[in-house]
């Protein structure tokens, strides 16, 4: 059994740590690229959302490298993600690929099925060892998320342009080579290096929050490296969703049926009253929170035809008006071009700079 799995930002670091500790034979599909997307969109329904297409590409590239088992998580709606596994299974079967798909989910068949699946994936391991492996994996992704967030802080302030990018790039390849718990060393090393980057003490960067659908937000292929792009323009970025938060909310708290109390739910309440699946509530709620925290702008990213985000997208103009915060919406699909995307981000950043300047001048004029 050789296992492969889909990419989503740095999630491979979690899975790698977990599989290393539990001696699972696995293959990490190559980093998402244009080829992944092309391969994926060739065999998936045209109108499907882009994460499905990229996942498909990951699987095909994983299979090329010898994988015969695919592990993904499932769900029960209303977002399309819950039915991904079944779509993949049908498409791969019709393509004549002999692979097994293991969906890690808690469905109507109860916890017994989930445990049986875990047993199959990790034979001869006790549940305690599996839990330990998962815990280490979770720790790895949590630290990586913190590291990324820290790089968002350092990047606009660096004196030597490109220093942060270089450290993060190096971290990426080191983390890929690290075996098991060695990953923590790699993270620590990158963090130390980041803290040594010479910074401009007078820098007061603009702040932009990023909201939207989790996959497009986190995967660099679909957000086209928006954090480094904005960061190198001297803008500090905050990303509303991270993998570790998602795991904490949905797998740990959801699995244990703990009560979720989130400030974004409260913030979104006047606009959108219930959970409608996907990340619509998060998108609206975080936009409100960013505005309250004094951010200069918000960027919303989601895949074309994403059902929950379309709802959020039709509410956001009202939020933007109420809180006087500019929102840039970027809709991604497989034919989105990078140049057009860059132009829009550039224009948005320019607008934010001028907006801040105008505000300052007004303050001077009014004498406050």
């Amino acid at each position, binding site marked *: 059994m050789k296992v492969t799995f889909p990419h989503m930002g740095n999630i491979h670091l979690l899975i790698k740590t977990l599989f290393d500790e539990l001696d699972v034979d696995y293959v990490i599909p190559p980093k998402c690229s244009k080829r992944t997307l092309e391969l994926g969109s060739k065999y998936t329904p045209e109108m499907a959302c882009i994460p499905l297409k990229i996942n498909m590409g990951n699987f095909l590239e994983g299979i090329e490298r010898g994988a015969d088992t695919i592990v993904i998580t499932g769900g029960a709606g209303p977002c399309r993600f819950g039915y991904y596994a079944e779509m993949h299974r049908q498409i791969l079967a019709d393509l004549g690929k002999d692979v097994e798909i293991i969906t890690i989910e808690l*469905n109507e068949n109860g916890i017994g099925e989930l445990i049986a699946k875990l047993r199959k994936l990790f034979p001869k391991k006790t549940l305690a060892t599996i839990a330990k492996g998962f815990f280490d994996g979770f720790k790895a992704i949590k630290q990586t998320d913190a590291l990324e967030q820290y790089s968002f802080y350092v990047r606009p302030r660096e004196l030597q342009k490109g220093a942060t990018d270089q450290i993060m790039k190096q971290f990426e390849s080191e983390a890929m080579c690290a075996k098991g718990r060695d990953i923590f060393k790699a993270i620590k090393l990158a963090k130390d290096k980041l803290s040594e980057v010479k910074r401009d003490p007078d820098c007061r960067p603009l702040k932009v929050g990023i909201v939207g659908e989790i996959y497009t937000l986190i995967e660099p292929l679909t957000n086209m490296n928006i954090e480094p792009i904005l960061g190198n323009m001297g803008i500090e970025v905050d990303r509303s969703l991270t993998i570790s938060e998602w795991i904490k909310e949905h797998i740990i708290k959801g699995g244990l049926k703990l009560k979720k109390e989130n400030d974004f739910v409260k913030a979104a309440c006047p606009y959108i009253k219930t959970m409608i699946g996907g990340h619509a509530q998060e998108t609206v709620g975080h936009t409100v929170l960013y505005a309250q925290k004094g951010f200069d702008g918000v960027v919303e990213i989601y895949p074309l*035809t994403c059902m929950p985000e379309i709802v959020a997208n039709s509410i956001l103009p009202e939020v933007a008006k109420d809180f006087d915060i500019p929102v840039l919406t970027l809709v991604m699909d497989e034919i989105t071009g990078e140049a057009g995307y860059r132009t829009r981000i550039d224009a948005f950043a320019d607008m934010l700079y001028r907006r801040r300047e105008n505000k300052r001048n007004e303050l001077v004029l009014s004498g406050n």
Partner: protein
Amino acid sequence: MKIGIPRGLLYYLYFPLWDTFFKELGADVVISAKSNKAILTNGAKICASDACIPLKLFHGHVLDLANKVDAIFVPRLKSVAHGEYICPKFCGLPDMVRYSAPSLPRIIDTEVNIRKKSGKLKQSFEEVGKLLTSDKKKIVHAAEKALFQNAIFRGQMLNGYLASDLLQNRMMKKQVFQGITVAVLGHVYNVYDNFINMNLFKKMYDCGINAVTPEMISDTVTDRYAAEMPKKIFWTFSRKLIGAAKYWADSDEIDGVIYIMSFGCGIDSFTADLCERIFKKKGIPFYIIVIDEHSGEGGFETRFEAFADMLKRRKRNESDFSAYGEHSPIDQNAL
């Protein structure tokens, strides 16, 4: 109190229920005008640009009612069957409408969510009923009557009548042609809205083709067939469609399938693909019409006629020439 019901989305499934309920409680029910170009254009202007065409049309219908009624009924439908969901857009629909359309009258946005407990339906009835009367007994009575009317409506559809005809009180005698029968699949608001489907049923009638729709198969049958899927389909309408597709693929009742899909529909993107795979395995011709606000009837007519001709020739010549541009059902797309 005048209550407006937009003639869009689930109007085509639940109108008799809503209508009876409101009328029993003494309200006046006003329906928006039949879908037309102006309604669509007005709706598309205010609606999010990447929403699907039925949603844009719905926004237009709401605008059409805006100055005519005291309240517009836009329920927040989260789940209409146990353990299942419907498209998330229905759940956010009242919010979408409220923040897209300027100066609307009151919106009745009662939540309907019977995913976990079917008893919640009673609560939803009560919540709406309270706006019209304080007599709880009256509400219960009206709800019972509404559900009864709904059952009658479904029964008539099972007998082979189209919802679009029934809702206009046109109980046309079913004309059964000798020859070709085509199944029309898709969400109810695409299939039965004669503006969206560009008069498909009339075109079929003119060509001498019988039309059948998933609503003509009982839920027990479609449930049984849908259960064959390895993973439960958690969207109610998608489950109905897949169940119907599997039923038809197993029987020899139909000669071809037309799937009406709106551009950007999240659920159809999966459902249509799954249906295509089901019919392809059986060699049944399958034709998807993707519609958005730019669709032209001329192009559609040409394609429909070509499809109809192909079906007729297939039947007449018995040569069974392939509907998929290949000679064997083996997939050419294989890597």
